[in-house]
């Protein structure tokens, strides 16, 4: 029973590590701030969830489990909020997204500018 829990925790750590590595590689390779927020969201959701779950499986007492779940819930609520705030302030300060403009229909494109 003990080794089964150990293996499950190892699997959770592996999946979480892969998610976090993908997230940080995406942070380097994505083209602009708004798409990098997507890559950072990968770290904050899949990575944190699997890592916390793996540590919950390994935790020796219920007090540690409660604190780990507290961290998980806190990160789940705050990381979307901070990602949204970064996008909002970046837009306010005039950062333009990369790529084509899909918000105006092609028929009005000539008239607008």
């Amino acid at each position: 029973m003990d080794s089964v829990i150990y293996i499950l925790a190892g699997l959770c750590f592996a999946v979480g590590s892969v998610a976090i590595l993908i997230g940080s590689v995406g942070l380097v390779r994505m083209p602009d701030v708004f798409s990098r927020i997507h890559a950072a969201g990968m770290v904050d959701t899949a990575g944190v969830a699997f890592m916390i779950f793996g540590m919950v499986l390994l935790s020796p007492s219920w007090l540690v489990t409660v604190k780990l779940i507290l961290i998980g819930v806190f990160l789940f609520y705050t990381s979307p909020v901070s990602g949204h705030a970064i996008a909002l302030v970046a837009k306010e300060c005039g950062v333009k997204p990369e790529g084509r403009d899909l918000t105006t229909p092609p028929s009005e494109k000539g008239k607008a500018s």
Partner: protein
Amino acid sequence: MIAVAALAAMAVAILIALIRVAHAPTAFDRVLAVNSIGTMIILGISLHGFAMGRPEFVDISVLYAILNFIGTFAVLKLFSTGTLGDK
């Protein structure tokens, strides 16, 4: 043992994210990358506790989670309004 392996993966991820902090086109990229690194540090402190056999380190992680959130919002408020709320 598995906690040490996860810690190593976390260290590599932090180093990759530090590349973005060093070479960023705008300040928001730096804020985003530092926020991400903060999240990884939170997990790293907890994992360090498990690797050393002292899971009480999660207390420090709770503190870091709150500090990370407030720090990000302080920097964003400074960018947005130009002050931190003082007259």
